[in-house]
């Protein structure tokens, strides 16, 4: 009929209008600062550096290998290698980053740095309220701002973190086994050497 569609449309909007005052389920908007939805596992925005244990400087997993710096498409990572070494996540002595800066005003949240890091040292964060009143210094994050504990990583990406933890544990066990084997071999060698000298002494006598 003539004008029927318009009337139907008007009825529909009127129903929405009055319905939104009657039933609360119609209004799906989350009132953001007061209400928050739980974050999904796959959420990500900027990278952060993972550290194990209590001390963020001692526990930092990054070994300053420069892979992420080279791979970052917009080149927003800046690393300076240390001159001394400290034990890394699995216990081997390694270099560590003296300076590790990310310019988040340039970072495009591509996660490539995370994908290429062979040491599981850099991961994507989910925190998004980073407004600052200084658009240069406020958006250049240094090592201290980037460092976050492994517990935090477990909290924001539980599945991923569990896999990383398992891999690291395996690695640590391997390194420990190797170290043990090496120590055993050393001990055996010493024992053998000691035995041979005693034999020599014996034969001389």
């Amino acid at each position, binding site marked *: 009929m*003539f004008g029927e569609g*318009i009337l139907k*449309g*008007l009825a*529909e*909007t*009127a129903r*929405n*209008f009055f*319905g*939104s*005052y009657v039933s609360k389920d*119609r*209004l*799906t*908007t989350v*009132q953001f600062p007061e209400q928050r939805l739980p974050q999904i596992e796959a959420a990500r925005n900027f990278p952060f550096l993972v550290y194990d244990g209590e001390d963020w400087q001692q526990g930092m997993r990054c070994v300053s290998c420069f892979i992420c710096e080279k791979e970052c498409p917009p080149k927003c990572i800046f690393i300076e290698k240390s001159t001394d070494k400290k034990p890394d996540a699995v216990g081997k002595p390694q270099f560590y980053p003296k300076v590790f800066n990310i310019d988040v005003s340039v970072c495009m949240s591509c996660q490539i740095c995370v994908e290429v890091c062979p040491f599981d040292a850099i991961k994507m964060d989910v925190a998004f309220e980073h407004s600052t009143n200084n658009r240069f210094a406020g958006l250049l994050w240094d090592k201290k701002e980037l460092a976050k504990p492994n517990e935090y990583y477990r909290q924001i990406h539980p599945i991923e973190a569990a896999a990383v933890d398992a891999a690291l544990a395996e690695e640590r066990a391997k390194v420990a086994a190797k170290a043990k084997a090496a120590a055993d071999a050393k001990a055996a060698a010493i024992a053998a050497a000691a035995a041979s000298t005693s034999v020599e002494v014996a034969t001389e006598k």
Partner: protein
Amino acid sequence: MTLSMFQAIDQIDQIFVTSQHRLVSDLPAEFQSISSAILSVIAIVLVFALLFAITTVLERKGLGRMQNRYGPNRVGPCGFFQPLADGVKSLTKEDLVPRTADQLVHFLAPVLLVMAAFLAYAVLPVGRNMVLVNLNAGVLYFFAVGSLVELAVFMAGWSSRNKYSLLGAMRAIAQMISYEVPLVLASIVVIMAAGSLSTVSIVDMQASYTGIWPHWFVFTPWGFAGFALFMIAATAESNRSPFDLPEGESEIIAGYYIEYSGFKFALFFLGEYLGMFATSAMAITLFLGGWAAPFSFLTWIPSYLWFFAKLVLLILIFIWIRGTLPRLRMDQLMSFAWQFMLPMTLLNLFVAGVWHFMPAGIVRWLVCIALLVAPAILLSRSLKQGKKFAVRHYRFAE
């Protein structure tokens, strides 16, 4: 007792008129008329600017609810102070002017738009004895001033040196000129019936009653059809959805005011809403009895309240329509104006003549309704049949 009650009612009704007289009566005689005019102008500017602020928040909240959203709900109680925040924001924003723009015309366009919109209020009777000037060609003046808006819009579009602005301005001009014709033709029936171009005498004619029923022109077949056609044309004139092609956010971003920022942008909004209020107020004056009460037993409510109640009602209908209908395409818009609106308004003129010359009674009603409804249905049917759905070929796109 009844007499004093009538007097009290009359006093409340005329309170603004008498207080204005009292204010200027102390002045020397040669300043009296000019200062009373200035007082009225200030009142009009304040009241309608306030109405603009209220409308923006009502519109945003209403549209939100129609789309199952909250709408603004942060500033003040239920978000009703949102216009204040918006005003502060638009005043403190940087005013950007494109380097290649025509600086002077670019500046003048929003000023002219708002001025033209305010000028139209001079002839609108907002209450009994409450009109700035009672021109004997008031309706004509209204439409003449209304077409100044087109000039302002084109100035904005042309001076910005931006293709979206120009496209938006050209769309706006095409649309406004096309719909001005049915707008004027739809109002001519009232002028025919009233025999006057003065808005005051048009309202006076409608402010009488048979029993409890008022003599509004909308309660006649030609008046109702005229009102509907007038409102459709008014929607198009004020560039509102579903005729908001000149702005068309999704295709030309904001049309002719894309290059405006800060307070000038706000002025464009103000001008647009003022134009909408003015045409709605004109529709009220012509068809809905102006400041007259809808029933004879309600005349004790002051006349200006009736006027603003009707105006707010029309604004709410505008918002409802905006929340419902999608935007038309340019060719649909044009064919609607020239193939449907124009024949219907011309036919309506004829029906008004028939009504005038036929003896009063039920037959006159039936004849006039038949004369309007049958052609409307036939016309819309035939327009629909003429449409073929086919793959479109663009000459330059291949």
